[in-house]
């Protein structure tokens, strides 16, 4: 972040901000104000920031395997693999969900018929749903969603929200969502403006 990009910000300008589970946070800002950067700093995939993050984003894979789960803005799916293989790529690593549980998720979000299709053939909205399911295939204390619902209609958005809420409750985990504008998909505890 260069200094010029910093405007009056609840996060970047304050001496410290705490995110704790199981609270739900919304971070709002316009494009280019560093929403994704903030999540990347926390996730440990972008080390170029000034300041401290506690606990320190760990460069070991455990941090990303069992502490945080992240639905990236660009999703970072593997387009040449099928939906199922994309999910298994994660789940084989974490051994967190059974095949049946994953099938239930797919069914619940209405993409069970696409399981064997390559991700590159899917629409953006369908891909977002795949990415969310993938994020659930691992243990976490905080779930990071970077503008997750940009390509979803209200009914699908509600389905995903219900699924995520249920998972958060069962894991007693927190949520960090970024959004361009106001958002009422989840019952946020705190809202920050960048």
């Amino acid at each position, binding site marked *: 972040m260069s200094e010029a990009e910093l405007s009056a910000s609840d996060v970047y300008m304050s001496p410290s901000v705490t995110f704790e589970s199981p609270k739900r946070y919304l971070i709002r800002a316009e494009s280019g104000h560093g929403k994704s950067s903030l999540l990347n700093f926390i996730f440990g995939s972008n080390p170029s920031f000034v300041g401290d993050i506690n606990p320190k984003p760990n460069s070991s*894979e455990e941090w*990303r395997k*069992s502490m945080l789960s992240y639905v*990236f803005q660009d999703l*970072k799916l593997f387009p040449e693999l099928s939906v199922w293989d994309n999910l298994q*790529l*994660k789940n084989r*690593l974490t051994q967190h969900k059974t095949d049946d549980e994953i099938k239930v998720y797919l069914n619940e979000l209405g993409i069970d018929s696409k399981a064997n299709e390559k991700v590159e053939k899917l629409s953006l909205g369908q891909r977002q749903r795949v990415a969310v399911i993938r994020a659930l295939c691992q243990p976490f204390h905080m779930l990071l969603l970077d503008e997750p619902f940009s390509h979803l209609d209200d009914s699908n958005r509600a389905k995903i929200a219900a699924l995520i809420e249920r998972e958060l409750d069962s894991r007693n985990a927190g949520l960090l969502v970024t959004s361009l504008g106001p958002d009422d998909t989840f019952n946020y505890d705190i809202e920050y403006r960048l």
Partner: protein
Amino acid sequence: MPLQLIGYAVSLVIGVFLVLVVAQAYIDLRPVLSEQAEVFESESAILTKKVSVFSSVDKGRIYFTSDEIDELREQPYIDEVGAFNSASFQIWAVAEVGQSGQSVRSDLFFESVPNRFVDVQDEAWKWEDGDTLIPIIVPKDYIDLYNFGFAESQGLPVMSESTVKGFAFKIILSGAGKSNQYYGAVVGFSNKLNSILVPDEFMQWANATYGMGEENRSSRLLISLDDPTDERFLTLINENGYVLNEEKLEQSRLNFLFKSSIQFTAFLALVIMILSIGFLSLSINLMMQKHEKVIRNLWLMGYSHVQISRFYQLIITGLTLTGVTIALMLATIFRAELGELLSSTLKSELQQNWLWLYALGIFIVLSGFFSWRVYRKVKS
């Protein structure tokens, strides 16, 4: 599979094949060479002065002066200079002839050269004070002379080298008012040297014990050369009017040529192998660059660098294993051909087979190196 990987595999097969063949051929052919080079170090030659009308009158002319020996020692292409020691006492060989116990006496002469010029197994070529058995090296021509000339005409049995080696005969040394009986045993044959050699230690002792006290002068010098084809050496010989047993040097030249060609092939093999290694290193870089995003995504998903590397390491290790195995198979086939050639032309046999061990070593080193490279690349 990318084209670079196939290129790597092919160049690896060629490189490893050459390395294996050269390394094994060196082992397999060594006995052939050392056998032909006989008891002398391969790159040694004998230097004498020309015997002329004048030297018949003045015998001193055939001896080398110490200045001349020093001059030879100073030449950069001459490794070592050794002088012949000759016996300054009388020697008789005594042989029992037939069953009647009749004995035949014959005058004999002994010479010795510094041990470093003699390439005989240590045990046989050893003499210590008090030993009555004297090891002897005789010219190979002597056996031929006996077998094809003497034995033929006299109806005596022919002898092989090994029969002669097992055979001890009486020797009488006398001089300085003493005379004692010893036994001589032939332990080796020489193609290069027309003389009867005994160990240097024995000669020194015997000269001190039986000698007439004459100063030891050298009419023949043994020299060992780094490169027998060096032109400066031939020039020096011609300028000083020395004589080199050039015919005998032929073997040294052959030996040198063989060594050079082995070295050249080994060099070529190494270059090809290094090229193939460079090839793969480049391919790894390319592959990693192409897969940069995938690697990054996998890492973000929680895969460790070690886990991501493993996929690439498996491919490369598998490829290396295939290449080395094919090279090993080719080298084995080649060696079998060489073995047939050896036994049919040179009557020599193959030595122990180290091919698989070399191949294993190459495989371990290569796959280890590349695994490390991949890991470094994935991590960066």
